[in-house]
């Protein structure tokens, strides 16, 4: 929900620099797995595994779905905002709305797809 909200604001205000930072932030989270929920859980003294979305008991790919999701969002954003804005002008908004809906409903088709592919 937070990711979707921030992306919506950035898109509405048409802040290209902000979008670049946003993409960088997602890449950073994807690389380090220092995601906000994990960091908050650590600060609260909770087990980070409790906030993990992993439900696959035996993942085929030893990589977190959440991290893969961040990489994919960053990639699509970079592609649609900076590389092909004329063609994929609608895609950032689609991602922003999808992220917000995923945050609210807990249903993320992209995450489901990644889990289906074998990410943990």
């Amino acid at each position, binding site marked *: 929900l937070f990711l979707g909200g921030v992306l*919506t604001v950035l*898109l*509405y205000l*048409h802040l290209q620099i902000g979008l670049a930072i946003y993409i960088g932030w997602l890449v950073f989270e994807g690389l380090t797995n220092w995601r906000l929920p994990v960091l908050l859980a650590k600060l609260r003294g909770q087990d980070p595994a409790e906030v993990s979305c992993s439900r696959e008991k035996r993942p085929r790919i030893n990589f977190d779905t959440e991290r893969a999701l961040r990489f994919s969002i960053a990639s699509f954003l970079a592609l649609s905002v900076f590389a092909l804005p004329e063609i994929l*002008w*609608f895609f950032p*908004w*689609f991602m*922003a*709305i*999808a992220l*917000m*809906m995923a945050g*609210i*409903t*807990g*249903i993320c*088709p992209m995450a489901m797809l990644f889990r289906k592919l074998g990410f943990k």
Partner: protein
Amino acid sequence: MIGKHHKDDWVHNWRSSVAVKISGAVLYAIVLIGFIVALFVLHNAEDQLKERYLADADRIAYKALLLTAEGNSENVMMHLNPSIKEAGFVGAEIICCSTNALWGNRTGEAIERTLPQASTRETRPIHLMLYHPPVQETVTGLRNRFFLMTAIATLVFGFFLTWVILRFISRPVQELVSATRQAATGDFSVRLNSTREDELGQLSRFFDRMIGEIQREFQERQQAEEALRHTHNFVRTTLDSMSDGISVIDAHNFKIIGVNAAFLEEYGISEAEALGKTCYEVTHHRPDQCQPPNDVCPVYLSLQSGEHASTEHLHSNNDGSITVAEISVSPIKNEDGIVVQLVHISRDITKRKADEEKMRIYADELHEANEEMKNFTSIVSHDLKAPLVSINGFSHELADTLQDLRELLGQLTISDEQKKRLDECNRDLHESVNFIAASVTRMDGLINSVLALSRAGRRELSPELIDMETMVQTILKSLGHQIESNKVCITVSELPPVTADRISIEQIIGNLVDNAIKFLDSSRPGHIEISSESSLFDNVYHVKDNGRGISEADCGKIFDLFQRAGIQDVAGEGMGLAYVKALVRRHGGRIWCKSIKGEGSTFSFSIPKEQKIEGMRKVTL
């Protein structure tokens, strides 16, 4: 009704709610469709906007041309202003000859139109510059607003859809889930009481009915369990309270499947050790079964016959000692009559057997002593009678001789002094002979009584049903002379019949009535009352008089041999009550006396109702 907290459970994990999931799926579909539509609609928005600006610019230019042709060139800008604003231009400029009219500002992108000079005086063309916002920014802003509104509308619609689903589907289902959970914890008082007419309402009513049935069955089961528990406790307590060791044996493999506390105590093992072991392992400490006929096994007997079996059995203890057990085995049969289990009741009778053995030895010794005593009594009585007869005969002979001697001495001439002396001797001799005769008579009576008592102890009794009232009347008739001479009033109450030896009962009652008459108090009219009372096991008969009475100290002695109480002014040897006591005891009864000296006595004796002919006791004195 279920509690409010149950209704709101979905809030705590609302992402799991079906409503949210359905709404999410629907919204995703809407968003997807919306984006596809937007893609088609907005993909060439820039071109469309550009074309619109160009078209508006042409229209405004044409309008400007007409105005200048009409000679309103000075006020062209004023007339074009509404059209320019309407078209969304932010600025416009008309450059005509020396005049230059500007409206708005020169920002954004410009569209230039050149109009021919309608005036003949001026040949230079008119330039119309129209400024509009950058198309790219306009379109981007338009798209952003569109998507933002789409997002907001989607969210609002999503919340509405979620609320609808929650209101009409999820919440009733959640209530059903909560009620089911409440019922699963054992609280069957939960009811949904739904008034809805749809499928969920029907489901709720079916749920209420089902829970009602479950509650009823649960209560019945609880009551049954409680009754079963009570019965189990009762049976368990009863079994554990019993002193006999009880075990239940599986008929198929002789393994013990249940024991009571006495069994465990008897064999010194715990329940865990006993259960699962065979009966012979526990009771005999051996791996093999009892081998009949040498080793008679009551379990085997009961299993073979299908009936109750009872026997004495030797059991081995942990320490190797042997105990004698009285075993009683009863079969438990199934519906087909096949023995499936056996109830094994064992009682340790080792001590009892030892006591019985001791008693048997004592009884043998007693029997032997009795036999010796009988012979002794008989022999002594017989042997005493012979010299007594001699003494009696010779005392009579002596009396006769003394009479002859007295006659001979009477013929002699002697002095008075000698005569006086002779008379004294004669009198002393006569008294001595009389005393000897009286003593012999008394001793003869005693010996006869002892012999009679001895015979009474050995006589075979013949029990028969006796009409006691008739018998008492017969006895009283035989004692009629004594009764009349003593002016005794005798009252006879209702007397129940009894099964006993007729002669013995006649002698008992005759003796007691005779004694009552003999020992009446001469200072008051005699009154004798014969009555009875009946208990469950015996009849008790009373002979009550208002005679002299017996002191409390003498009451216990009068039933002994040769014992008499009170003033000895009535002839007798003190044998009557001893004789009566012996007869009563031979019938299995007892005799006792209650008396107050000076007021009277009550002699009572009991005769058991059930007389066993073979079992009649032989009391030997």
